[in-house]
């Protein structure tokens, strides 16, 4: 939650939240955010949230894991200290496939997780949460307001769309 001022509307129903968000957008408000107990599909368009780049992170690190893993195996087995193991060639690529696969998954998966955290700005233990109920059954809409005269307008807008509680943050 940004430190800027704005209005928080708490809804009981996600559909009302969506309606409220639509109304706020139409009224020209930007950078809206919603805080919900579970993801509301489709709301990203309403709020104007952009595409997530997580998948690119996964791909890049997966590829790094793949080639890094394979390269490491080749380097240790055939370059750094080649050893005759069971009469197999030093460069026995088929035997290296399982670990190449595993390193792909490992690096890709772990970096996805780390990616989510960093994209979401987590962990962030110090910050305040908008309302404890948003993790239960409340659906909160955050509308940042730049000029304080608009606050009452936003408040009204929220209430019209079903918010049962509206709070002003300054």
């Amino acid at each position: 939650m940004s430190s800027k001022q704005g209005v928080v509307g708490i809804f009981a129903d996600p559909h009302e939240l969506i309606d409220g968000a639509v109304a706020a957008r139409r009224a020209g408000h930007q950078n809206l955010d919603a805080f919900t107990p579970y993801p509301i599909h489709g709301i990203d368009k309403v709020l104007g949230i952009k595409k997530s780049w997580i998948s690119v992170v996964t791909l890049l690190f997966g590829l790094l894991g793949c080639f890094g893993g394979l390269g490491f195996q080749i380097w240790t087995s055939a370059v750094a200290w080649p050893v005759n193991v069971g009469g197999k060639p030093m460069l026995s690529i088929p035997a290296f496939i399982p670990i190449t696969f595993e390193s792909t998954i490992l690096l890709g998966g772990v970096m996805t997780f780390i990616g989510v955290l960093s994209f979401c700005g987590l962990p962030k233990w110090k910050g305040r949460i908008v309302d404890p109920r948003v993790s239960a059954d409340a659906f909160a809409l955050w509308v940042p307001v730049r000029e304080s005269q608009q606050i009452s307008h936003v408040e009204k807008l929220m209430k019209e769309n079903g918010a049962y509680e509206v709070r002003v943050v300054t």
Partner: protein
Amino acid sequence: METVWKKEPLIHPRKKLTDVDRDICAPMESRPSWRWYACLAVAVSCALVGAACVGYQLHTGFGVWGISYPVGWAVDITNFVFWIGIGHAGTLISAILHLFRQRWRTSINRSAEAMTIFAVMTAGIFPLIHTGRPWYDFWLLPYPNERGLWVNFRSPLLWDVFAVSTYFTISLVFWYLGLVPDLATVRDRAKTKIKKFIYGFLALGWNGSERGWKHYELAHLILAGISTPLVLSVHSIVSFDFAVSLLPGWHTTIFPPYFVAGAIFSGFAMVVTLLVIVRKVFGLEDYITLQHMDNMNKIILVTGMMVGYAYGMEMFTAWYSGNEFERFTFMNRALGPYAWAYWIMVSCNVLVPQIFWSKKLRRSIPVMFVASLFVNVGMWFERFTIIVTSLHRDYLPSSWGMYKPSFVEVGVTIGSFGFFFMWFLLFCRGLPTIAMSEVKSTMHTFLKPFGKKKVKVVETGEEYVF
């Protein structure tokens, strides 16, 4: 979308969102009953028995196990494969069913994933303690050292190291990522400072922001996507321990699918066993309904038959190969001194699940509980049969021998169950056993699509699509 779900909701329809929180968080917010303490005491004692056995082994030498030549692996690797297999159901439920948009999974995936984590932890103990010098186990890792020594990347055991550790890490990450929003819920409900601090720490400051949810959902999907080949690869690689060696009875190409099917089979049986208890003890019948159990039993039936098919094909391949060693091994399996283990395996894994053709039995809690126990026993003996009967009579008749477990094997096996249940019991008390945010998302009773379209009421539990 199957129509049956419309008639029978996944979650009891009278439940509200806050009811979900209340019901699921109840175990965390109340004092445990004496029953839970009793269970935990039993589990911890069992785990301590196992730990004592391991301590004795470390001090005296691996000889305190019953293992010798030619049977160099037995209960140790049996337990390893068994527990890894158990773990597979969790990943399967959360990852594969997630990809297939099977929404009924939401009630069970959290505990199933937890089971995965604990099962893999339990499984991981065995390769660590089964070595002669466990204090040097770290040599299996390719870490840079002053002698420039590396490891043998051609060894299936090393593949195991990578597969199991990757599996554990990814499962943990996947599970934890799913837990974060629920931990936030728990944090927000917490009354005491300590709880607030602990859950607040674990929740990482999750605030339910829709931007977060966006990344979260995609990451969850990606992790599900990479977990799916991972879960298939892990048991394939575990099966390579056997398939890549040259022992008759081990050296066979059907092992990877055979092992994966077996893993799913045993994993689901373990999930059924656990959930039958959990839903009863914590009163979660409204969340884990008969419908869930029914679905799982169907999977048990299907995978059971796949396993049965594999048993048949093994026999056929051995006969068709014309290889006398191969033939002997399978004759010996079915008729030799360990035939009892083979027939326990066949009857538990192939015959017992056949009862699930009947819908009535499929939905009977006592029946499924007993059947799932049988399947667990059968799958344990499957691994035992594969490992011990193949080893005990291999190429040279002069080196044939028998295997008899010592008390250490028994103790360690008991210990593994204790260890597993200890973690599971702690999990039931300490973390939300059901993915609350996911369950809530299935509880839309209606949706108003964005825009100026008419309000459309959608049936309970149905997939919502934009």
